[in-house]
């Protein structure tokens, strides 16, 4: 029925099956939308956040998806700026994931703030000293870039492509994509970094505070680095997941391996930087404010010091695996590595958001614990459902994977 919309030469599941799937995921989406509306109409009292836990699940999810969406900017950077041409076979998907991640991030922010109708004050009354201002500007601009990168893909839909205007537009946009990719890489460098800066500049919060270069704390660079390292892992992970679901090979192994190799090197170097940062913070920064590293992780039923070890393991191990040829070639090791890589970013963002809030700073204060309300969980799942739907639609109707036709020749 919708075969006219489906790209040429590829096979898709029957429409009913597709609609059933979209319907199921759509129900989850609606649940999230309901929770979102509750938050907007009734206020943030719908959450379990409080004055001690001003940032919680949502901000973690926000930082998490931005880090994981980093695959888009870094792959784009490699493809268009560095000139790794091979990556053109995965760039569309990376851009799609990035687009989903960033639009979700903006949506989460719009739910998270207490006065959504005044959200634009961040641009209009911007305070240049605030890392959050930098985040807002770069994030929005980069989202614009992602739209520009994503639009040609939409226009390449078989029917839309027939319209000359769209056809030309898509064509011309492709021509100048290098410029946008470079801009995107630049913007991303800053906003990924400023998200790290958000925590790192909090000199009232010894767990988060980092010394650094000029106005940028170490976390600024670490966040950019980790996004560049973990984002591609996430892209690979989702590629493999989609291949599993569609039971098709969508990207050739050499493409994946190239990206994995680069991600491996990024992870490996990042883990060294992260260890160095942790050691300096634990031995110099924190003690200067009267804290032992153990204090940050004690008295807490949920986060022991293991979370730090886990984070480091999740960067070092996949890093080591992916830089070796054997690690990349072995399917199991490759998938384990990219999952760990994606996990590393999530753990890091979790710690840099929630642990920061949980640790008491005044000596007589107590640990702050918090369990998210269902509204928070639902609104956090909302972007996931939205992402699944968007991937499904994009995959079905757009030529996301240039190699699909060639890797899956139709028998007809």
């Amino acid at each position, binding site marked *: 029925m919708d075969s006219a919309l489906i790209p040429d030469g590829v096979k898709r599941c029957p429409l009913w099956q597709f609609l059933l799937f979209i319907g199921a995921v759509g129900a989850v989406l609606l649940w999230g939308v309901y929770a979102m509306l509750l938050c907007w109409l009734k206020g*943030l*009292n719908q959450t379990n956040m409080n004055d001690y836990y001003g*940032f919680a699940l949502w901000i973690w999810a926000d930082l998490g998806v931005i880090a994981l969406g980093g695959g888009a900017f870094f792959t784009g950077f490699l493809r268009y700026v560095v000139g790794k041409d091979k990556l053109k076979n995965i760039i569309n998907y990376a851009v799609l994931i990035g687009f989903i991640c960033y639009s979700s991030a903006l949506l989460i922010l719009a739910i998270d703030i*207490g006065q959504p109708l005044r959200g634009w004050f961040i641009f209009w009354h911007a305070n240049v*000293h605030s890392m959050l201002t930098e985040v807002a500007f770069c994030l929005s601009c980069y989202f614009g870039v992602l739209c520009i990168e994503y639009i040609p893909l939409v226009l390449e839909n078989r029917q839309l492509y027939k319209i000359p205007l769209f056809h030309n537009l898509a064509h011309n946009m492709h021509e100048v994509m290098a410029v946008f990719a470079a801009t995107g890489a630049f913007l991303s460098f800053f906003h990924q970094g400023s998200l790290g800066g958000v925590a790192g500049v*909090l000199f009232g919060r010894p767990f988060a505070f980092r010394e650094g270069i000029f106005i940028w704390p170490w976390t600024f660079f670490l966040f950019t680095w980790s996004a560049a390292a973990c984002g591609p892992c996430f892209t690979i992970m989702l590629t493999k997941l989609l291949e599993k679901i569609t039971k098709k090979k969508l990207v050739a192994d050499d493409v994946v391996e190239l990206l994995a190799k680069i991600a491996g090197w990024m992870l490996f170097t990042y883990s060294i930087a992260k260890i160095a940062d942790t050691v300096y913070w634990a031995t110099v920064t924190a003690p200067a404010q009267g804290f032992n590293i153990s204090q940050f992780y004690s008295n807490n039923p949920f986060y022991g010091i293991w979370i730090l070890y886990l984070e480091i393991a999740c960067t070092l191990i996949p890093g080591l695996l992916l830089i070796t040829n054997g690690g990349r070639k072995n399917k199991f090791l490759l998938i384990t590595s990219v999952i760990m890589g994606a996990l590393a970013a999530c753990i890091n963002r979790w710690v840099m958001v929630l642990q920061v809030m949980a640790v008491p700073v*005044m000596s007589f204060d107590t640990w702050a614990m918090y369990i998210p309300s269902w509204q928070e969980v639902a609104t956090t799942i909302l972007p996931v459902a939205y992402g699944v739907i968007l991937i499904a639609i994009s995959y079905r109707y757009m030529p996301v994977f240039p190699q699909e036709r060639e890797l899956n020749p139709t028998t007809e």
Partner: protein
Amino acid sequence: MKNEQGKPKKYGMVVDLDKCTGCGACMVACMSENNVPFKADESNKRDSITWMRVYKITNGKPFPDTENCFLPRPCMHCEGQHGHSPCVSVCPATATDYSTETGIVSQIYTRCFGCRYCMGACPYHARHFNWWDPVWPDGMEKSLSPNVSVRMRGIVEKCSFCFHRYQAAMDKAMMEGRKELEESEYQTSCTQACPSGAITFGDLNNPKHAVYELKKNPNAFRLLERLGTNPKVYYVSSREWVRRAGDNYIKGEWENKQNAKK
């Protein structure tokens, strides 16, 4: 505006913890002066708006050597480094600001859009978010003061050192052709109410104000000074364990500091 000594004004507080009895008058004086809202259940202290909160701290020793002390915590109006207090520099919309004229950290409710970054930045938990719509039971809104604007849901609020009293005092002074305020003309509501006289408020830069000398007390300390927040609220306690509780020290550090003093 500068005071007679040519230094900018720097309003601050000295709280005598030996005198503070934890009675809570400062908390209520603040709430009633500043139109602070209330809910039916305020027992969850983590979403209860109290610009001034009195902490009960203990020396942690078992019976019968237990000791308690009360520590009132308003906003510290941190000066940070050159006015870059932890919260001011992070606010993305300039809703909170540091005034070099008075040293007061402002919070503009109508500018704030509720991102709560400042709350995360403040180690004193002096900032409170309006999680709920403020509701006054029918008739109770009659007790609201027009000098302080009522806050709306979804924004952050905090102690302003009763800045509206400064505005009113300046109005009166200007009316009388003066540009200077006497110490007594501008006092915060908590200072005025404290039945123990434990709170002293004034210009830390003005030798004519009591706080100028009081802050030099050898038993004076500030909360979390080591973080570099440079707060303007000083505490005085004759008890060593209380002074120690004012900051964090790694093992042995405090003892070394005490020995070095001797």
